[in-house]
């Protein structure tokens, strides 16, 4: 067991965790934040993506103890009060999801992508979401959602 301290969605968290606990398991099972999903569990699908100090990472491929001192943001931490994030709103408006399982990871990945490239082309969105797999949509509406969100985020 190791005592870890980090900031999760703006709240200080301090807990004893077994050293072999994955960050995603800690977020879901210990903290009860189940918006972050476990899809493939082999680092392929991206459903478990969260931000660590503003950088997107797959939380199934990191130990909780490695996050000592970090600022972690999950899908639950991106809304502004009751207002959902423009990226979430854009997925809603553009039908960027069907079953929704991959959506939290898609949204977290896309927020980083648009932060680095405020006006991404089709191919830049597809390349930027390389680490996220969706088995429903065929990606077309996801690309549309990300570009639509990028336009909204640029105006803010």
């Amino acid at each position, binding site marked *: 067991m190791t005592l870890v301290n980090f900031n999760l969605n703006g709240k200080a968290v301090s807990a004893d965790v077994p050293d072999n606990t994955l960050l995603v398991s800690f977020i879901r099972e210990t903290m009860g934040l189940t918006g972050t999903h476990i899809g493939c569990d082999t680092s392929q699908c991206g459903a478990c993506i969260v931000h660590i100090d503003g950088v997107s990472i*797959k939380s199934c491929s990191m*130990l909780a103890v490695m996050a000592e001192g970090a600022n972690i943001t999950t899908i639950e931490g991106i809304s502004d009060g009751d207002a959902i994030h423009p990226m979430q709103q854009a997925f809603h408006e553009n039908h960027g999801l069907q079953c929704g399982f991959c959506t939290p990871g898609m949204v977290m990945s896309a927020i980083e992508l648009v932060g680095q490239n405020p006006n991404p082309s089709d191919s830049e969105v597809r390349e930027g979401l*390389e680490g996220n797999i969706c088995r429903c949509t065929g990606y077309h509406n996801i690309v549309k959602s990300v570009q639509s969100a990028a336009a909204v985020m640029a105006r803010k």
Partner: protein
Amino acid sequence: MYKTTYIKAESIDHASASIGDDGKFLAGGMTLIPTMKQRLASPEILVDLGGCALSGIEDCGATIKIGAMTKHVDVATSPIVQSAIPALASLAGNIGDRQVRNRGTIGGSLANNDPSACYPAAALGMDAIIHTNSRDIEAADFFVGMFETDLEEDEIITAVSFPKPEAAAYVKFPNPASRYAMVGVCVAKTSDGIRVAVTGGGEDGVFRHDELEAALSAEFSPASARNVSIDASEIVSDMHGTADYRAQLVGELTARAVEMC
């Protein structure tokens, strides 16, 4: 994942002293953690090198020195690397996916020596020096075999120095799912002559291709590379591609890399 004891090393010496008989050094964890999850590795001790101040990129004149814990994203976006060795920046920017590049490190990639990894081709092709906590190792001596290097159990890569080539290019044919190289070829014009390093196909991991180097030394052109008959007998077959298919890729990707030089 089996139980393990995590140690965040505060220095190289601390890390080296903590590794014990059955420990593993942890860099970005992009290979080691998935491997532990599959129970293909079960180190009793995991020594995290993240606190050992091993990140950073330095222009040393004739060479670029990259700290072992420097992440792929930082190599890909470094103005120093982009201007002096654009082939290396491009290689780093095409490893895996965004999240792998955000965590994976150059030292971790080299130490793992995956036979399909990209960095070993650049290190061997550009004649890099691998610096460790005890010595400097030439790339040619560093890569010993598949997933095998010259590193001792308690030896830690601290940095890698890449001599600035006159020209260089790295081209890979990525596996569509993993983005690992089905075959990747690094062609470099160095002070030492033309070097061609191939990843993704060798039975012993990354290797230099003598026939291609000889052909390109005689005439540095894509046609010259395409005219070399690639021996498939020393190239691996697996579920992703046969040896013949990969051998064809070696010649073709070399030609494409020559075009980019």
